[in-house]
């Protein structure tokens, strides 16, 4: 099984980068177009614009009116979606192999031909507001938003991807169209396709579709590095509910930095294994992780723990999240979490723990690699902050991590001065009346 081998990049004259990988296990092809734009490219007044723009990309072009386009993909039995993240925005279709041309045409067309009808902009305004309101219904959203605001005073990672309500209310059609023209162009995009095709034939078709498009302007760069934090931030968010939530977030290195992999192993020891699978493949539980064992099993301080270390272009956050046990004092829970971090700083982890973390990651890759949608996802995703070699070398990078590395990054990053501690305190018991 040649699941994770490097593949060459092909660059068209207009700057479009193409990654192709033939996989002939099922009559399917997954095609992705990635744009190097996300919430990191947004300043106050325009927060949420990248995500709203993603919605507008489903509103149609002259060639493919909106309602017709959705039907074309669905009629063929394809799956499609789009995602806006901190650093990127992506669109994908996974199709029966003999129908892939429809997806290729649609994506090439909407790279430059979306119309941004003013009426549709208005009706989508309330849809993106509704998406945010739906998220607001979950207490963890408020905690997450407050932590981001506290962590990033300067950098655009400080606002949520969905944007602030005031900006969603005030931005207009021209703002969206300008954003589109600035960032949606071949020179700012990557196409990644995996599945049941002949590489030469597919490349020829991609050239037909894309080579005629102008390269596009140099996209504006928002470059506002976050200065080092000076002292621990602590915050509290109050709202309805009965359950106390806690999050501890540390400023963390970007994915391309060498400390990223030791931190991934550290996270695996603390909160359990994470994979890179976006589409199925399933996960592995974290019941034997250090934090779960101590906080959930041994001391009844939490009912669940989880961790996340997203791969980003700029330094972002390593976060640990707790659902605090109903009978526990949140401060005691946070002290126990500190105790486990202290243990990592004081005592070298065993080689066996590291090997186990690597085996878990290998298994997650095996599960996820069975989906060609995941395969094509990995190929483009990694190009957004590093390169595909970051994925193909992922297991080696993890296996190269030593106990000393883990201890070193624990001592360097997991210190109070570098973190934000947030607690969600429910102030009522909800209203159960009808």
């Amino acid at each position: 099984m040649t699941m994770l081998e490097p593949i060459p990049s092909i660059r068209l004259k207009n700057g479009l980068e193409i990654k192709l990988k033939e996989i002939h296990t099922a009559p399917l092809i997954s095609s992705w177009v990635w744009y190097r734009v996300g919430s990191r490219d947004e300043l106050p007044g325009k927060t949420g614009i990248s995500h709203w723009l993603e919605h507008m990309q489903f509103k149609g072009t002259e060639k493919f009116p909106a309602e017709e386009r959705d039907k074309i993909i669905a009629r063929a039995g394809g799956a499609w979606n789009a995602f806006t993240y901190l650093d990127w925005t992506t669109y994908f279709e996974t199709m029966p192999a003999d129908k892939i041309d429809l997806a290729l045409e649609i994506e090439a067309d909407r790279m430059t031909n979306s119309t941004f009808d003013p009426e549709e902009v208005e009706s989508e305004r309330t849809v993106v507001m509704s998406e945010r309101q739906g998220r607001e219904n979950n207490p963890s959203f408020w905690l997450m938003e407050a932590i981001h605001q506290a962590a990033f005073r300067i950098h655009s990672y400080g606002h949520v991807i969905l944007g602030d309500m005031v900006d969603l209310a005030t931005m207009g059609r021209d703002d969206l169209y300008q954003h589109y023209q600035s960032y949606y162009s071949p020179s700012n995009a990557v196409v990644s396709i995996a599945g049941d095709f002949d590489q030469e034939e597919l490349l020829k078709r991609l050239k037909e579709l894309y080579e005629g498009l102008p390269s596009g302007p140099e996209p504006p760069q928002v470059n506002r590095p976050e200065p080092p934090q000076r002292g621990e931030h602590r915050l509290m968010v109050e709202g309805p509910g009965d359950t106390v939530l806690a999050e501890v977030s540390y400023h963390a290195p970007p994915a391309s930095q060498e400390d990223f992999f030791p931190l991934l192993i550290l996270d695996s020891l603390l909160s359990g294994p994470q994979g890179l699978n976006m589409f199925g493949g399933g996960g592995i539980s974290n019941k034997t992780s250090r934090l779960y064992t101590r906080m959930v099993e041994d001391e009844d301080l939490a009912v669940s723990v989880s961790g996340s270390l997203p791969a980003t272009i700029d330094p972002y956050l390593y976060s640990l999240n707790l659902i605090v046990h109903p009978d526990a004092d949140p401060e005691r829970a946070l002290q126990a979490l500190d105790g486990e971090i202290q243990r990592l700083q004081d005592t070298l982890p065993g080689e066996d723990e590291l090997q186990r973390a690597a085996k878990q990651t290998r298994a997650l890759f095996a599960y996820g690699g069975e989906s060609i949608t995941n395969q094509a996802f990995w190929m483009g995703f990694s190009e957004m902050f590093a390169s595909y070699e970051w994925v193909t070398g992922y297991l080696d990078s993890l296996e190269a991590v030593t106990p000393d590395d883990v201890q070193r990054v624990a001592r360097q990053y997991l210190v109070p001065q570098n973190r934000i501690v947030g607690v969600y305190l429910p102030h009522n018991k909800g209203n159960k009346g009808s």
Partner: protein
Amino acid sequence: MSKQEFTPLKTESLPGPHDITRVELENGTTVLVRPNFNSLSIALSGYLQAGSLYDPEDKLGLADFTADTLMRGTTTRSFQELYDSLESMGASLGVSPGAHTAGFGGKSLADDLPSLLDLLGDILINPVFPEADVEKVRSQLLTGLDLRSQDTGEMADLGFDQIAYAGHPYRFPSDGYPETIRAIQVQDLVDFHAKHYGPQEMVIVIVGAVEPDRAVALVKEKLGSWSNPNQPEPIQVPEAPPLEKTTRQHQIVEGKSQTDIVLGVVGPRRNWEGFYPALLGNSILGQFGMMGRIGESVRNKSGLAYYAYSSLSSSVGPGPWTVAAGVAPENLDRALDLIQEEIRKFVAEPVSPEELADVQSNYVGKLPLTLESNSGVASALLTMERYQLGLDYLQGYEQMIRKITREAILEASRQYLDPDRLAISTAGPPL
């Protein structure tokens, strides 16, 4: 835009009698295996007759609680040992009950299948329900219920079941209520397991990099000698009569930005002859493309909601046929009007020939994608076994879908979706 020509499915590449092994063990368990040597892993799934319909009314959540406690320790392994084995292999295993059955599922690298089956056998046959562990699970379940009470989508769902299934066994939530979870004793869990966990009518599906004979032999070795003479017959649930008139209920959840809507009727059973016409009709109503006609009306044209879609969840019993949407509280009545208008239109006249052709192509075309992964195939095999569709179900699937008519869709939909007898449940800030 011209309509696409369709290429018929290559039926020989779909799982079927030529590559599915089906064996009935002496103890009443059915094993299905489909090899896939393109993969490195194994997907395992199945069910046994231990769903929440067996919960006593004052101990709702008992089936859930039992399933969640199975992995807290067995006669030979502690919780820590169980999970250490599992997580060290990079494998997963879990049990989650539905109304009729408790489903289980797992995943491992191919070499670890014997260990995974060993663990499955151990937790199903030999759980010990240690008291301290039961209390830990209880805290987790109660916290889950606290979170549920803050989840407007879940609260609207619960409200729908109360209205649409009044007097029917489906009216109760499988995760119970705080007071019923608190009422459950360790002995209740022990008794529930002793009575309901057994090999009669159990189904195990294994898909992945394993020879079928070996997989069957492994199941026999780990679970073949299990027996339980106390197992009752599977529960049959009655029909749920339609409401006399549209009934609306609002559940207040304070401090929320959005109100969730769940609206609909009690739908058909999975084995009803009109099920497939209803399924295709449902897709036209609220799924196809960007959430069908309802998505077009509520999201695309009116901008009222990020999600607005319909679902048909038929099962052994009469499952719900619903529309769900999340809207700003001030738009609630408008959204309800639009959704009801779409339902009214949907049962007033047949869908268009284009709509039917589109949805037929969709159902046929997406089959290879749903069968791409081992777990996708396992899920298809499980459905085939549960509803006795036959091992050649997928071979006849395209023909079955393509012969559905507009009239059949109208007839099936009219039989259930009565726009004057809807259960309308909403949850969010006060009205």
